[in-house]
């Protein structure tokens, strides 16, 4: 390599102080997370709110990465930023009635929300300042921050080190049962969602039904419109896109004037 003396002398004359990257990155991510969280509250356009929320959650994921919790950070990106927020924006776009909807909050709501938020902030700050010292990992714990102990614990095997003071032979349970219960819950939710979103069969009405429905015109019109809108679709995704023609043409008639 190059002789080290000349660059070193040049470096010493630089008026730049040594940067502690860990601290400065922490500050950067923290400021972005907090500022965007405030911006979510102050913005009045729903999609902009969602955008600020993405930035805030992404900066939080950055904090997780900075702390070495890579699995948690990637999880945050995947679930909140990638999944939930895309669905949120998607829903906003599907349900909006006019372009660039602005949400105006009434003064009473602002005061109420401010009080609730201040109370929450007080509780959080108090508990944050009560932490005496940030705990280091237990001696002999799995030191490299990997997701393996977590995954093995979900399978019922604990590979992380026991807590300090605990006898080495103590049986420690994994998280297999809670994991399974949560999985079954999610399966139930999935089946329910598929049931709700599936296409309704179109039946040819019997004469007696037509006669009965003609007496109440309002109920008949509502049922016929719902069946016609969902009959062409076979799944939730298609139902959503089948509706794009009706909602988006109402959403963007030519921009804000």
């Amino acid at each position: 390599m190059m002789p080290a003396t000349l660059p070193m002398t040049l470096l010493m004359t630089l008026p730049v102080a040594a940067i502690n990257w860990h601290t400065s990155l922490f500050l950067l991510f923290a400021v972005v997370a907090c500022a965007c969280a405030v911006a979510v509250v102050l913005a009045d356009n729903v999609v902009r709110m969602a955008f600020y929320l993405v930035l805030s959650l992404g900066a939080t994921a950055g904090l997780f990465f900075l702390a070495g919790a890579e699995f948690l950070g990637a999880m945050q990106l995947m679930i909140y930023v990638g999944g939930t927020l895309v669905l949120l924006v998607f829903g906003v776009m599907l349900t909006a009635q006019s372009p660039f909807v602005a949400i105006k909050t009434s003064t009473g709501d602002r005061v109420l929300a401010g009080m609730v938020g201040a109370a929450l902030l007080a509780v959080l700050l108090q508990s944050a300042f009560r932490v005496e010292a940030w705990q280091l990992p237990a001696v002999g714990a799995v030191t490299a921050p990997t997701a393996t102990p977590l995954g093995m614990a979900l399978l019922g095997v604990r590979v992380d080190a026991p807590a300090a003071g605990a006898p080495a032979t103590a049986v420690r349970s994994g998280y297999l049962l809670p994991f399974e219960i949560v999985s079954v819950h999610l399966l139930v939710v999935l089946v329910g969602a598929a049931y709700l979103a599936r296409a309704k069969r179109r039946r040819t009405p019997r004469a007696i039904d037509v006669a009965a429905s003609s007496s109440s015109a309002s109920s008949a019109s509502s049922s016929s419109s719902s069946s016609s809108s969902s009959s062409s679709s076979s799944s939730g995704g298609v139902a959503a896109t089948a509706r794009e023609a009706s909602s988006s043409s109402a959403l963007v008639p030519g921009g804000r004037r």
Partner: protein
Amino acid sequence: MADFLINTVGLPEWLAWTTTAVVAAVLILNVIAGGALVFIWAERKIAARIQDRLGPTRTGGRFGWLQSLADGIKLLTKEDLMPEGADGMLFRLAPYISFCASFCAFISLPFAFDFVGQRLNVGVFFVVAVLGLEVFGVILAGYASASKWSLFGAMREAAQVVSYEVPLGMCVVVPVMLAGSMDLVTIAEKQAGWVSSWYLFHDPFTFVIFWVYVTCAVASVNRAPFDLAEAESELVAGFHTEYSGLRWSFFFMAEYGSMFLVSALAALLFLGGWNGPIPVAHLLGLSEGTGDTAGYFVRLLGCGNLIVKASLGVLIMMWIRWSLPRLRIDQVMATCLKYCTPIAAAMFAGAMFWQLALPGGLVRGLSRPAGEVREGWLEGPGGLSVRPTKAVSTPAVPVTLVDDPGSQTEAKSIVQVAP
């Protein structure tokens, strides 16, 4: 590299880290930008040949190889337009969001052993998660453009990407299960050896699921026949209808970057990573784990291997694009929900039972008593068995065992890494 700068060159620590980060970032940026230049030219030529044309022939010489550069200059000098009714901030930011997502995913993508921006032990998961963020730029672009064509494209993109993340995740899990790690470096290390040790040929189920992965990857990077978000025949240009000039080219760079990324991911997960079909370096007695010149040479060779594999993947995507007609949105959804997801689930279960019947690393690890299982329960590459009870530091087997409860002093010294 940071260690080298600190110890050998003598830079202060903060400057060494900065230099390392800047070098890695610039290299990744060049992979994306240079790759886009080459691939756009290749796409023009391939499209032309498939359609029985010649494609660009004049710019820069015989094969028109300067065409992409000329395109770039044209894009730079174009007027930057914004529609009157657009949401200005989101309209301006959207291309950068797409590009940033594509760029960030490259950070943890290894090009060879040790040639990785930031080695994460959840590398696969990180790449897939960040790749999913690219759709956000597309959605914002479609919304902020104040054009119904853009909005149609964005909503199709959202529906498509959210749906295709499910089978894509399922495909990616299978190599993770076989390797017992989410670290991309470890996964590729496991496939060292002859071509038969690639996960593509591990068992019939992985062979099938590789093709499911290819389908889902093409769909998730929004390429034909799944390019409904920019369907020219219906939506003018889809989500980037209102974009011009440099912002538009950012979308394209993101697209070509993502194509290269999913191809490199396929190479790492199924096609042996940076290990060639014939273990040339191993036969010559060289090892990539060592820090000397020979090791460096082997790593460069591996880097070339991976780039060739990923570029082949990109070329195959182009071939698909110019061969198949575009699907309808309901056909796209049916492909995902009715075919890809069930096939991926069945193949996942099959690969799992295959792994149970022929006990590999994972099963052996599970049958160990609690407390003894650790990161090193995996089999080393090339059939070398790593005994997890002692820390092996053979240069050929770069599996690090750091968490030995027996040596508490060693563990203590490793804890203090954060400044």
